[in-house]
């Protein structure tokens, strides 16, 4: 239902746009004529462009929509930050400040939980990235969930605590809930809990920055990592790395304001986790006492929305970066993205349309509209190329193509030369975008027909052959 609502609204927006365009000016025509390029080659070209009035109107509309969404989001988050309503925003900074005023609960410590399901291949490296931090964590606990490999031994060998889940049927969220249930009540006000995927490595400085942030602001409830992709997986890996670079850039431009507290690595104050567990079943969905909602496919996205709903202050500082695993095959990527997409839509369905979910609705609406726009674009290209037997140049549209190429390259710049080369070619990334659009449509269809959602797992040792999904939970870029 939720997917249909979003897709329906996007379709209505598209129809309205067309109606408005027909009302204000003549339709765009593609009628090629011949000319001479540099006076030598006979070329076929079409100079058709929208009339200036239509062009200005659509540019203004886009600018208005983008800045409108940003402004509304800023207003909503500011209102939440300044709230002192203990009923609606129990984690609002003012209230937290009042509760902790004059009480020194000791220095900030970090306890890391690493949920692991058959992660023997990457666990040792993950633990090493923690112990080698400039500010190493005080405690590391591997949460082994239904492992059939040597994950438990790898953990013990690395000298960290290992806790095995008991009778857990709710995957990662269920395993974490079991541990958090006894861990959180024992944590002091400043004893932060970090949840980190076993296929992820922290960059040095992550914990030092996080501890400094928690030390300087006792109202800060959570810190989310910024993830980028590990090397490898060829062009498919590069597509994902470019996507992640752009996401990180977006977050930096938002001054660290969080979209999603990524499951790859995020740190919470215990007060935040306690408030979530207490509010489940009433103010937010889920079972009272659970930190994670086990019904959510993307439990990190859900926890972010839960914390936002409770008014928590959170941030993604640019120094808190992590390297995460790339999906090595299209099939694995398909499964991962289908789960993210479905999870994001279902989370929105669970929370409904509220001011605090506004940004997420806008994002999904944007994706839905993007699917329609890109499909229309491909249809136009296809019909035109099948109806004309010669190459036609469109100077106006090629100029815009140049702008898109510049934008693609600049936004992926941090990814290095491979990233920039892939970006400037435009077409490959357009194909990747189409792939993601197909995933979106499949997600909407699956929700509509109530198909069982897949939560497959990628075993690192079998990468490339028959891997059918993955276990990490970074909910990424929109």
């Amino acid at each position: 239902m939720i997917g249909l609502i979003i897709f329906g609204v996007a379709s209505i927006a598209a129809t309205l746009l067309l109606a408005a365009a027909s009302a204000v000016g003549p339709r765009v025509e593609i009628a090629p004529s011949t000319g001479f390029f540099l006076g030598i080659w006979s070329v076929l070209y079409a100079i058709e462009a929208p009339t200036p009035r239509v062009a200005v109107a659509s540019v203004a509309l886009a600018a208005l929509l983008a800045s409108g969404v940003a402004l509304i989001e800023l207003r909503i988050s500011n209102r939440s930050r300044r709230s002192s309503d203990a009923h609606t925003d129990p984690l609002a900074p003012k209230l937290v400040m009042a509760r902790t005023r004059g009480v020194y609960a000791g220095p900030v410590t970090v306890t890391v939980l690493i949920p692991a399901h058959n992660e023997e291949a990457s666990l040792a490296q993950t633990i090493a990235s923690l112990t080698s931090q400039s500010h190493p964590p005080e405690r590391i606990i591997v949460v082994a969930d239904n492992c059939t490999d040597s994950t438990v031994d790898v953990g013990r060998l690395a000298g960290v605590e290992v806790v095995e889940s008991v009778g857990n049927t709710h995957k990662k969220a269920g395993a974490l809930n079991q541990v958090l249930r006894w861990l959180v009540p024992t944590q002091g006000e400043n004893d932060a809990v970090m949840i980190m995927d076993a296929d992820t490595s922290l960059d040095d400085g992550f914990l030092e920055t996080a501890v400094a942030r928690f030390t300087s602001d006792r109202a800060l409830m959570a810190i989310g990592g910024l993830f980028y992709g590990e090397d490898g997986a060829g062009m498919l890996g590069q597509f994902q790395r470019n996507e992640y670079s752009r996401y990180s850039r977006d977050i930096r431009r938002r001054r660290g304001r969080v979209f999603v507290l990524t499951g790859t690595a995020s740190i919470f104050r215990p007060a935040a986790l306690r408030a979530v567990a207490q509010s489940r079943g009433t103010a937010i969905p889920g079972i009272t006492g659970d930190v994670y909602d086990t019904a959510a496919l993307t439990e990190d996205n859900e926890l972010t929305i839960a914390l936002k709903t409770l008014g928590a202050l959170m941030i993604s500082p640019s120094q808190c970066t992590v390297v995460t695993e790339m999906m090595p095959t299209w099939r694995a990527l398909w499964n991962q993205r289908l789960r993210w997409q479905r999870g994001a839509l279902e989370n929105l369905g669970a929370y409904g349309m509220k001011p605090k979910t506004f940004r997420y609705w806008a994002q999904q609406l944007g994706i839905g509209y993007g699917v329609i726009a890109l499909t229309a674009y491909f249809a136009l290209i296809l019909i035109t190329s099948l109806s004309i037997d010669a190459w036609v140049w469109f100077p106006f549209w090629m100029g815009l193509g140049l702008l898109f190429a510049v934008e693609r390259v600049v936004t992926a710049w941090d990814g290095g030369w491979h990233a920039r080369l892939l970006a400037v070619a435009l077409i490959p990334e357009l194909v990747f975008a189409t792939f993601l659009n197909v995933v979106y449509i499949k997600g909407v269809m699956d929700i509509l027909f109530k198909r069982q959602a897949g939560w497959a797992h990628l075993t690192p040792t079998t990468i490339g052959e028959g891997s059918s999904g993955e276990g990490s939970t970074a909910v990424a870029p929109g």
Partner: protein
Amino acid sequence: MTTLVTHLQTGALLPESILHSDSFKILATFVALNTLMYATLALMKLLPKGYAFSWFSGRNRRAQDRSIGSAPPETDS
């Protein structure tokens, strides 16, 4: 030139007249508007993001030390 025009009239697989049909023009207009809108968004992503309000507004500055070891302030904000 003649060949080119002939090609144009017949098209590869579809008749060239389809390009002059009303529904095709509607599709072309829709794509044109979208392209312009997405181009605007692309341009906005390229330009530095301004936070004009924060340059002038004192409300963004914290009125008190919020660190974990801070002494109780006289007023809260």
